[in-house]
Structures are given as structure tokens and as C-alpha cells.
């Protein structure tokens, strides 16, 4: 099989995958109190994301982007509405089921990387698999594999303080990928890096999406948004144009 036909086959598979709905939100509302004032962070968000899609959520500060991401990531529960991931209504499961679902379905990439400073790159990736009770040998193998994929094969034993911003963010992406989640949620993943690193990070997310990984990026950066399959614009807790 020649190179072109191989690529063609891979694209077909990816396109086929993009027809399944991996994430769906229905009437998502979130209200919290700031002192005595109720803040309506989300006012009924309906969203559908297909498997392997790379989408961006944009909008001004306070438009509800991070709240939406937190709810999808099961870090917060909505006041109203439902979230389905892989056909499972994650907003309806018992609290004690949440950590397991979070491990299986979600990989987080944070703006400030949020790596554990005392651990090496390998340790930071490997720790994510500990909670999934993966055997140590397998954890090390998988962590090495994903870090090598991120081009950090020679930085495995470096601590975050010994890594550049771009390298730290790649460790963070490797950590998010460790448990092979259904969706990667990236909150301003390029907010703290220079433009060269930004290109590199978006390149990586693009590559992951092309390989069938669903990626949702919250960003302020229009350059980043333009390079995603679809842009969802949030204004005052609602999807614009919805």
C-alpha cells in the first residue's frame, strides 16, 4: 500500500468517526451566588460535538467558557440540564462514580500547566494512571510512550522547573492523554506560551484530532480558533446564533 492510499484510509476512518456524537449538552444552566447577587454563568447551552472534532469555545471574559468546560469535565455540577459523554448521562450518575468517569472520559490541559513541581515529567504523566490502578510497569511504559510522542523522550526525568513553558504544556498534554480519554478539555492551552510554542501546541492538538481524539479548546486567541474545525461563540452564557 502506498503512502497516499494509507493517508486516504486514515482520513476516511477519521471522517467516519466524526459522524458519532461523543458529547452532547442539553439546556445547560449554571447559576451561582456572588454575595447576594445571582450570577447566571450559563443560560441554557445546547451543544453537540462529534468524535475526533477539534472545536474551540470563544467569547469575552465572563461569558461562561470556563464554567462550561468545568461542567463538561465533571468538576462542577450544573444547576439545570444534562451532559452526555459517550452516551452516558454524566450529570445523572452518583457522586462516587464521578472520579472514575473523569479518568475514563476526560483529559485536562490547563493554562498554567498545573504540573506537580516535585515530580519529573514522567512522574507527572504516570500519576494520572495511578488512580486508574494501572500497574506500575504499564504506567511507566505508557507515560514514556506519550511523552516520546510529544517529543519529550529526552526530558523524561526533568522536573517542571527544568522545562520551558512549551515543554511543560506538552507534558500536560501527555498527562491528559495518559488514560486514553474520550475528550481532551484544554483551558487556554496557549495562554502562557510564545507564538512559536503556540503553533507547536496547536499542531499537536490538530494531530490528535486527526487521529480520532476529540479536543475542546477554550481560547481568547482568534488565531487558535481559526485553526479548529468549529468555533462556538459564547455570549452571556448562551451560544451565539443558537
Amino acid at each position: 500500500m502506498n503512502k497516499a492510499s494509507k493517508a486516504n484510509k486514515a482520513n476516511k476512518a477519521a471522517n467516519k468517526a466524526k459522524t458519532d456524537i461523543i458529547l452532547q449538552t442539553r439546556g445547560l444552566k449554571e447559576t451561582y451566588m456572588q454575595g447576594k447577587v445571582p450570577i447566571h454563568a450559563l443560560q441554557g447551552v445546547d451543544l453537540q460535538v462529534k468524535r475526533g472534532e477539534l472545536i474551540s469555545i470563544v467569547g469575552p471574559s465572563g461569558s461562561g467558557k470556563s464554567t462550561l468546560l468545568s461542567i463538561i469535565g465533571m468538576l462542577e455540577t450544573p444547576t439545570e440540564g444534562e451532559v452526555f459523554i459517550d452516551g452516558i448521562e454524566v450529570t445523572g450518575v452518583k457522586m462516587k462514580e464521578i472520579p472514575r468517569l473523569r479518568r475514563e472520559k476526560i483529559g485536562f490541559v490547563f493554562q498554567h500547566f498545573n504540573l506537580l513541581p516535585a515530580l519529573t515529567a514522567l512522574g507527572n504523566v504516570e500519576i494520572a494512571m495511578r488512580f486508574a490502578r494501572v500497574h506500575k510497569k504499564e504506567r511507566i511504559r505508557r507515560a514514556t510512550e506519550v511523552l516520546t510522542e510529544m517529543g519529550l523522550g529526552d526530558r523524561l526525568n526533568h522536573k517542571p522547573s527544568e522545562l520551558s513553558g512549551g515543554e511543560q504544556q506538552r507534558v500536560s498534554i501527555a498527562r491528559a492523554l495518559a488514560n486514553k480519554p474520550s475528550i481532551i478539555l484544554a483551558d487556554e492551552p496557549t495562554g502562557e506560551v510564545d507564538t512559536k510554542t503556540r503553533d507547536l501546541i496547536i499542531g499537536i492538538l490538530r494531530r490528535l484530532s486527526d487521529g480520532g481524539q476529540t479536543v475542546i479548546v477554550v481560547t481568547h486567541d482568534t488565531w487558535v480558533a481559526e485553526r479548529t474545525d468549529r468555533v462556538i461563540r459564547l455570549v452571556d452564557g448562551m451560544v451565539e446564533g443558537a
Partner: protein
Amino acid sequence: MFDIILRNLSQRKVRTALTISGIALGIFAVIVMGSMSENFNQTFETSFSLTADKIRVFGSSGVFGGSVTTSKAAEVRKVPGVKDAYGLLMAPLEEGGGMSFGGNQIVGLPPEKSQTVLEPVQVSEGRFLMRGDRYETVIGTSVATQYKIGVGDRIEIQDKYFTVVGVLEYTGSFFDATAAVPLDIAQDVYDMGDMVSMIFAIPEEGVDGDLLAKRIKLSVDGVDTLSPSELEEEARQSLMIFSVITISAAVLAAIIGGLSVMNTMLMSVMERTKEFGILKALGAERRDILIMTVGEAAIMGLLGGLLGLACGWVVVYGMNLWLAEKGIVLFLITPRLVVIGMLFAILLGTLSGIYPALRATRMSPMEALRYE
């Protein structure tokens, strides 16, 4: 998980060391005070078991007073069921010394009865007293050690010199701190006339000690009795009070150590708010966070316990060595004490870690992630 716990502890070396020292100090107190209590307990148990078959007869005017005379012994001996009875005079060996724990005492006894009184203790050197002995004495091991004397040497008691004719074997009881001398000589040198401290009444075989004690009390005028079981009860109560005082002082010290663990863990949990947020975002369960945090506290408790035990052992060993020259044994570390000390340390660490751990598990991951 163990490696993460150790990493977290080693990350804050000074604080961890200080906390461990706090626990160690508490457990040190438990070991030292406890070993003192254990020693008294054991001395009592042995002393009691060595004289368990004898009924003590006192003058009714005062327990442990010297208000009973030798002649009463003859009256007691006549009571049915009494095999033998004889007076004993007890007095401090050293001038000004009390009859308290650790002090040496003389026991004036009829010389021909010395073997019976001291039974089942045997002499390790020399012989017991015998009829006709006057300024002769049989001494316990503590007296021998303290005065550095043995058979053939002389010891001064109340300005009179007594020749040591026998040294008793070590018993771990009051007998070790005793110099047995003939009763009439003791009464003489202590200027006690015909007085004795108490009369020992030995029941005939098969006679119930408690019933016989009552019978003696009813049959002989002006005496009070203490049966073996009454004596045990009385002594146990005093020992209990002593144990409660020493152990509660030690427990208080240990609880302060425990509070220092709680303080450290609370600070550590606050500092790691964000870390817990990250771990939860990575799928850590409540149980993982709980094990991690309580584990840290428990390990600090364990290390503090080991350190406290080691320091306590060194001090107790040193003190015993030093006191041995004075013929005193004051501390005894028993396996029971070691187990209690260690369990207490681990329990204290674990309990002190639970509240901070619960706080850590209750944090909302989103709030924890936003925490700076």
C-alpha cells in the same frame, strides 16, 4: 502511594522533623513515665506473690504503725488455723530515709524464721540468719550493690556494725532493698522496746486466709488484720492512682504531640489545595486523597513513636545504670509498654491526620484549581 507519601514528607523536611520531634517527645514521656509505673507494678506483683500466703496483723490503733508488741505474736499463734506467727520490725536503713520506693529498709525478724519469712527467696551467697545470730545480717542485692559489700563485710546500721552472713538472690521485689537482722537487736538499735511493725501470721495448709484474718481480729484484742486479698486490693488502689497520675501526664504530652501533627497536616493541606485540585481533576478518588493525607500523618506518628521509644530507652537505660550504683531500680521497659507506646503514636498520628484529610477530600476540585 507510599512513594508519594514519602515524597511529600521529604519535601518539607524541617517541618516534618519538628512534627516528628513533637510526637517523639510525647512518646518519650509515655515510655519514661510508663516504665516507672511498670517497675512499681512489677515490684509490687513480685513482692506480693512472695508474701501472698501471709496475713499481716497490726495494732488496731494504726495500720503500718509500730503499736503491736512481740507478745501479741504468741496470742496470734494460738488462734486455730494459724501455723506460725512472729513479729517483724521494719525501719529505714539509712538515717532520715523513708520507707518509700527505692529506699533501703531493715527487717527485724526472729533469726531462726528468716528463711521462712523470706521464702521462696534463696540466698545466692552465704546463709540465712540462724538462732544465736546477733549483729549479723542477710542483705538484698540492691543493698549489696549500693554499699559494695558481700558476705564477710560489715555494714553500719544505727551506729552499730553488722556482719553480712548472706546475700539474697535478685527478685525484683522489696526484698532486694532489705537488710534482715535479728528482731531483738533491731528493737534495740532502733530503741523500739518490745514493739514490732506487724505480725506475720502463716495459715495452716488448707485454711482460707481471709477467714483466718477475720478470726484473728476477733480472737486477739487490739489488733487489725490485713488478709492477702485485702492487702492486694489496698496496694492495687495505690498503684492505680500512681499509674493514673504518671500515665495521664505522659498522655497529655503525647496529645500535645498529636496536636502538632494536626497543625502540620492542616498547613500542609492548605498549601497543597491546588495540588489536591489537580489530583482530583486527574481522577483521584476521595479514598486516594484520604490515604495520602492520613498516611503522611500516620508515618509521622510511627517515626515519632520510634524516635521517642529510642530516646526513652536510652534515658531509662542510663538512669537505671546510674541508679544501680545506689541500689535502686526505678524503670522497667516491658514489651507491653513498647507495644502500647507504638500503637499510641501511630493512633495519635492517624487520628490527627483524619480531620485535615477530610478537609482535603471535601475541597471542590474547581475551587482548589482556582486557589493560588
